[in-house]
């Protein structure tokens, strides 16, 4: 009798620490894989899709980590980083780079933009401590809208990118074929029947993760974490809070820039104008799904979260379509991703940050 009670309590504790929403979503994903064969969905190709999309999005999700570490909250301003990446991507095509060098050059071109924009964004966030998330959201939106104007006006003239009839103004979508399409995806690609693994992309993400992981263990990295977890203590031990925060924002912005370039090499297209507009929320909810919170995020959270999130995204439409001929995946995506963010924002223990 007593044992049953403690067992129940213990399991409740376990569920609590794992997070009920995450549990539900994990079970949902498992369920999807279990019923997939009955809906005539090939599990191997399902896993391949999931891995491909994992590779596409993981770096964007990784861009959440530095800012959360330094206490800047969830990076709703991800579009700013994406814009840096888009500038790099369009420049590498404008200058006619091809193959792997074009991918590398895109990152090289994007870096100065990411540093400058990130530094400005960081400085702004330092002046609005406590209200970062809302302002980050609107900084992201404003910058997307501003760049909409710039994409029309900037003096690009590569015929593959500009509108044919006018000769100026970038197109809404630009193919990266002939530039860096699939340079990572096809590197050491593993193909067994229906199962395809984009090894290169996953390796690239692993490399970046390792670098971030190592960075967080350097002196600067630990100082950054200290700023996030206890700013008063950090100040007392001689760490400049504002500098650490700015550094983390620059890092997040740069990861956002690299993230979108990795995304494009797999997706095949550069999406300008409104493209980056709604890219922050999926990345935010993915890292939360992985077990991160408003002030705690690890690489493991990124990996688990992206796998779960992209798994749901790839499996739901095919399984649902196979079973009930009704595609509710879009609705499920909206409810799951925003529900996850709401859950994180309303957890009691984090209110007293």
């Amino acid at each position, binding site marked *: 009798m007593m044992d049953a009670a403690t067992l129940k309590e213990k399991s409740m504790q376990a569920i609590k620490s794992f997070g009920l929403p995450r549990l539900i979503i994990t079970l949902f994903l498992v369920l999807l894989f279990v019923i997939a064969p009955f809906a005539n969905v090939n599990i191997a190709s399902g896993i391949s899709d999931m891995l491909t999309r994992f590779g596409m999005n993981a770096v964007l999700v990784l861009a959440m980590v530095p800012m959360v570490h330094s206490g800047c909250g969830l990076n709703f301003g991800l579009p700013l980083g994406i814009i840096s990446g888009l500038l790099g991507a369009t420049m590498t095509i404008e200058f006619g780079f091809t193959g792997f060098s074009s991918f590398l050059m895109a990152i090289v071109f994007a870096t100065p933009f990411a540093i400058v924009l990130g530094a400005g964004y960081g400085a702004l966030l330092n002046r*609005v401590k406590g209200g970062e998330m*809302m302002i980050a959201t*609107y900084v992201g939106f404003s910058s997307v809208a501003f760049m909409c104007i710039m994409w029309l006006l900037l003096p690009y003239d590569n015929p593959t990118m500009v509108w044919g009839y006018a000769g100026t103004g970038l197109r809404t979508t630009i193919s990266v074929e002939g530039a860096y399409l699939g340079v990572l995806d096809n590197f050491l690609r593993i193909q067994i029947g229906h199962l395809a693994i984009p090894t290169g992309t996953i390796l690239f993400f692993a490399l970046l993760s390792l670098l971030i992981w190592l960075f967080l263990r350097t002196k600067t990295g630990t100082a950054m974490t200290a700023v996030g977890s206890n700013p008063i203590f950090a100040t007392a031990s001689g760490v400049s809070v504002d500098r650490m925060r700015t550094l983390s924002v620059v890092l997040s912005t740069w990861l956002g820039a690299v993230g979108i370039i990795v995304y494009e090499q797999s997706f095949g297209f550069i999406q300008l104008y409104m493209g980056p507009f709604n890219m922050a929320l999926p990345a935010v909810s993915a890292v939360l799904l992985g077990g991160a919170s408003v002030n705690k995020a690890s690489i493991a959270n990124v990996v688990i979260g992206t796998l779960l999130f992209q798994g749901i995204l790839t499996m739901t439409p095919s399984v649902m379509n196979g079973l009930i001929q009704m595609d509710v995946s879009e609705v499920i995506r909206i409810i799951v991703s925003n529900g996850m963010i709401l859950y994180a*924002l309303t957890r009691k223990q984090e209110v007293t940050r």
Partner: protein
Amino acid sequence: MSGKLDMKNKISVKELAISNLVPILFICICIIGIPLSGYSGSYILNEVLSRLGRNSFLVLSLLIPVMAGMGLNFGMTLGAMAGQIGLIFVSDWNVVGIPAMVLAAIISTPISILLGWLCGTILNNAKGREMVTSYIIGFFMNGVYQLVVLYFMGSIIPITSSALVLPRGYGIRNTVNLETMRKSLDNLIPFNIFGASVPVATFILVAVFCLIIVWFRRTKLGQDMRAVGQDMEVARQAGIKVEKTRVLSIILSTVFAGYGMIIYLQNIGTLNTYNSHSQIGMFSIAALLVGGASVDKASIKNVFIGIILFHTMFIIAPTVGRNLIGEAQLGEYFRVFVSYGVITLALVLYEIRTRREARKALEEAE
């Protein structure tokens, strides 16, 4: 002594300019933009009057949560959804004109109350970050709204009109034609001035709503809300049920936003089932901020100044873009940029001011 006084005066002028930065910026944009657009005065007047009529109610619905210290209620989209659901039902039932608007409002009310209660309860668990949370609630509920409208209506919820339901048998079409109630309120009392038609009846409704807000501020509940908005702990010690008051403020805002949406759509004449509500919160908040409101202070005056300035910019931006650069698209992007930029600027100014005041209070305490 006098020098010191002068200094103080100078600072206050500077501060006045900073605290009204957004409206001043907008007045400048409008002054420069109007001649460049080449529009006639009566055209702009006509447009502004019509937009003032259709948007005032929506923007006014934002005032109550600001009073309760809950910031700008991005969750007003929930009310907009409720209003749209009401409109879908009345179009299905073939009810037209003013009765249709009243009926839609009646249907929207319980939905708004439910959604507002939900939103308020969630926000009580996210004190200190109400805005970002209400913003996400808007997105979240948009998913639920899509589930209901796109999958349940016509299958579980009886909607029969073939003009509304998608050919597949369930789900509402992209656009719902509201031609039968178009401008039925605006043109109820016809009146023209300088060649511009004035939506008199709509203005009367708006005026009534303003009076309600003024009256509401003086009621017990209104006083409680202001107390909660000033300091939750002090209010709690004074015996005010803080949580309940906050939820009530959101419920009221949501209900009025629903009515506002119905008024807005009767002017437009078509309902974009899946898009009409999505940006309403953003634009309404931008308009309010343009009028000089901030996260913790917003008055009826701000609403009207804001709508007039914001919409003048909105009307002229595409033509100014075309006349200046030869690209109307540019003007459209510009006005989107300005809308978002204004919100960003206002939020930043507010945060900076709060931090400075907090620091000052701390210094004074020491």
